[in-house]
């Protein structure tokens, strides 16, 4: 019964976070089938290393493993897209953009925004997902992404600027 008890304990801890794990994997891989593979791999790893979980936040621990599984998946499945390559942030929040107001709530077209988001480098996508969807703190984001806590704010800021730049460029298209 020991093995089954361990399985149950794991399910109690891990299954409530399945949506969060899948959401991160789906945003990182860009499609459902790969996201499912990444999540399953992550869950089996998490089960294997369950005894190593010492922290107080299982969701953060699990999302860290999801991200690691994604990195390994990436090694095995090199797509042409440049992932984890920082985009230059040559835009400032103070930049006068002709359609700065276009990012106001009532005028945003969700589909376009999500498409633009999907085209951002993975290092930007992951911090945006962790912050804006999963509502993780800077400290938790640092734990999941293995970047220094002091870097999270600037990484997030650059990610938002990159998305805003993409939005503004898209608006300018005829």
């Amino acid at each position: 019964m020991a093995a089954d008890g361990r399985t149950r304990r794991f399910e109690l801890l891990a299954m409530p976070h399945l949506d969060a794990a899948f959401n991160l994997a789906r945003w990182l891989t860009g499609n459902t089938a790969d996201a499912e593979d990444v999540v399953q791999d992550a869950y089996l790893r998490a089960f294997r290393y369950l005894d190593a979980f010492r922290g107080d936040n299982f969701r953060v621990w699990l999302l860290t493993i999801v991200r690691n599984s994604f990195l390994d998946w990436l090694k095995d499945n090199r797509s042409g897209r440049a992932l984890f390559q920082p985009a230059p942030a040559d835009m400032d929040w103070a930049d006068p953009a002709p359609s700065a107001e276009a990012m106001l709530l009532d005028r945003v077209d969700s589909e376009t925004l999500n498409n633009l988001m999907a085209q951002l480098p993975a290092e930007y996508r992951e911090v945006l997902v962790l912050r804006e969807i999963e509502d993780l703190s800077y400290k938790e984001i640092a734990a999941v992404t293995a970047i220094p806590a002091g870097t999270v704010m600037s990484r997030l800021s650059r990610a938002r600027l990159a998305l805003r730049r993409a939005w503004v460029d898209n608006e300018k298209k005829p």
Partner: protein
Amino acid sequence: MNHDNAHRLLPAYVDRQLGPLRGYLVGRHVAMCPSCLGQLEVMQAMRTVLRTNLTVHRAPPALAARIGSALPREALPVSRRRLLQPGFAGAALAGGIAGVALTLAVTRMTPAPDPLLTDVVADHVRSLMADHLTDVPTSDQHTVKPWLSARLDLSPTVKDLGAEGYPLVGGRLDYVDGHRAAAIVYRRDKHVINLFAFVTSERSDLATHAEKRDGFNIVRWRMGGLSYVAVSDVEASQLLAFVRLLEGGG
């Protein structure tokens, strides 16, 4: 705080990640600095736009089952999937029309590793042990239903069946099989009944189906696009009577 410092910390201020003192100091600077205020407004608009519009991808229902069957289990066959169980399939064929008389398909077979059943039983037991039976403890159905609807995008049936011997105790949020679920709590004498309601990719109506797991009686059905699972240690006949009362009269 001078302009450069405050300006640098604006993103963390928008993200509410500054401690009380620094948050106060940045806020005080922003109130006096039109340039910072302007940027703050753009950042805040962006934050709202992202939070409102970014797609939240939900795990496909099959994923929980797939992971569940990949985990090691002792002395349990891992090949049977829930929808292939004869009783469940039979119920699916017999059902399909809302409000038909209850079709009861009782399955007698070795317990299959159905993650949903494992889940609801674990949720039920935990709700009894962890002193976390309800998030909203009230017997008022008009309080429980809106409380749940406001937190989940579903609107389950909530009835006060106190007169019939099944008083409403309250509601709470829970997880079943990877889905966010409403747990509506009733009592029968000293026994607790947890009724879970959640949405899966399966939406068609399904007649009631009773089974037993780890000594608990479980009745599940689907109606109006919502999957319901009732779990309790009351007798199967009482649990079915309870389900009939719930379903009866809309």
